């Protein structure tokens, strides 16, 4: 039985060489002093990078932003996605077209989503600041991307716009896998619309919802593209999340050792998140 290895080896080797090996190397960098343009750097510095990390206000701010960013993106994506899925789950005239249109944002490349939204938020050519001003939401039609207090919300809007279809499609698929007969049986038994939603739709949908939200959380927390494109984490690191902080550290600071330390911290945080999830799952299984 060597065949399966033959078929899977090329893919596996490439994945190992370009992700697994670098992950290990990357973690080792976290304990070294590596400056890109400085050939004398490279020595081991133990936990120095991590000590610096603990003192780094930008990092703590990025950590706080990561929570805000992830929770707002995933929360709203989920909410809107669920509404859409429920509305698209019954046949009505024009459904196919409406569905295709609503799902379109998901197909737009992330960088373009980011640029598109930064243009919309730019008072020179975008309407959003002017509308917000007219509605009294803003004191002047300014660009929120350059406002340290609100800059993070630009990428969040873009993220919600872009990610909602993902939830809608996933939840719609789950909804459509619920056998029609169950609803019909419930209706014959006298269950009203709300009751049917509570006693059939929710329980059927719950596993998909939980898994999708949990996985999506990790993915969104790991994705700095929108922020890199829209604000580069600015102004003055105000909209930095940990993932984008790693990138800007590497890209602008050329301080690879420190960037790797931040990335390692991110991995640790995600591992803690994963273990928490597993622990909660175990606890819930144990209670059954």
């Amino acid at each position, binding site marked *: 039985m060597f065949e*399966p290895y033959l078929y899977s080896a090329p893919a596996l080797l*490439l994945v190992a060489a370009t992700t697994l090996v*670098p992950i290990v190397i990357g973690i080792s960098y976290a304990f070294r002093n590596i400056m890109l343009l400085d050939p004398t750097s490279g020595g081991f510095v133990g936990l120095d990078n991590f000590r610096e990390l603990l003192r780094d206000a930008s990092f703590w701010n990025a950590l706080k932003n990561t929570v805000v960013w992830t929770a707002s993106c995933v929360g709203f994506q989920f909410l809107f996605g669920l509404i859409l899925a429920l509305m698209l789950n019954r046949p009505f005239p024009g459904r196919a077209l409406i569905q295709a249109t609503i799902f379109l944002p998901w*197909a737009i490349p992330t*960088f373009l989503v980011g*640029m598109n939204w930064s243009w919309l938020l730019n008072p020179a050519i975008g309407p959003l600041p002017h509308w917000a001003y007219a509605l009294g939401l803003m004191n002047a039609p300014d660009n929120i991307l350059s406002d340290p207090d609100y800059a993070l919300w630009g990428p969040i809007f873009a993220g919600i716009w872009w990610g909602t279809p993902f939830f809608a499609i996933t939840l719609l*698929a789950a909804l459509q896998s619920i056998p029609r007969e169950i609803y019909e049986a419930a209706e014959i038994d006298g269950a009203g619309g709300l009751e049917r939603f509570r006693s059939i739709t929710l329980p059927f949908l719950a596993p998909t919802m939980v898994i999708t939200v949990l996985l999506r959380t990790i993915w969104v*927390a790991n994705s700095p593209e929108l922020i890199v494109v829209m604000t580069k984490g600015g102004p003055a690191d105000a909209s930095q999340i940990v993932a984008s902080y*790693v990138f800007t550290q590497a890209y602008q600071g050329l301080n690879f050792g420190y960037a790797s330390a931040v*990335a390692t911290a991110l991995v640790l945080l995600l591992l803690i998140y994963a273990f928490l999830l597993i622990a909660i799952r175990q606890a819930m299984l144990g209670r059954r």
Partner: protein
Amino acid sequence: MRGSPRVRLVKWSLHYGVLLLFVVAALFPLYWLVKISLTPNDSLYTHSIDLWPATISLEHYATVIGNSDFLLFFRNSVIVSGVTAIASTLLAAASGYAFSRFVFRGRYWIVGVMLVTQMFPLVIVITPIFSIFGPLGLTNSLMGLIIIYTAFNIPFATFLMQSFFDGIPKELEEAAMIDGATRFKALLQIIAPLTLPGIAATMGFCFTGAWGEILFALLLNSAASTSTFPVGLLLYSTRATIEFGPMMAAGVLALLPVCIFFFLIQRYLVQGLTAGAVKG
């Protein structure tokens, strides 16, 4: 929906009303992109927030196409995304086939590794890949990006291809093997033709993935000659004097291949999402 005609009317109006909101929200940013790209320079800033352009012109598109840099970026992106799509689909088809058809020692671990790489923050590999690729001459090279993108696409593409293979009865290649074919021949002559739509969809997913990637493209390929379209556009947008018109025209052009792909593979979206589970 049940109820008296009046209640029904209200319910349906509400239904369509809410959906209309979503449709507008989904389309508006794209509409704006197209609108600005068609607004000539003289009315671009004076009428910047009018819903309709006063006059329409293709001058920005002419600017973009006349600009050799953009053409170069476009060409680079097409090469990188095209080769990535082909390479990752081929490799993923092979490994997806193995997962679909064989139970073998280590399979569990291999799937695990692939899943984990999907969950890991890619930013952690940015610095090591930069250091590894530099000495190999893979920075500022299209090849470097192709390797990275292929590797990043493989896990997702593998699960996708596996789901397509799973949909094809195992008996088909068994029949072919009894008819006298080797397994590889059966794969090529019997299974591959039946998976063509799946292969096309996978290529589409990989193509768009590579088409839109920006982090590695920014970091690895800083030289203009090897920049991909996203990098070119982003760097263009941070120049001192920004010309919004041509930039948006370029954005619209970048959108075209993706939109074509989107409408072609619409019916595979759900499968793609369930196979990928975590990727978007």
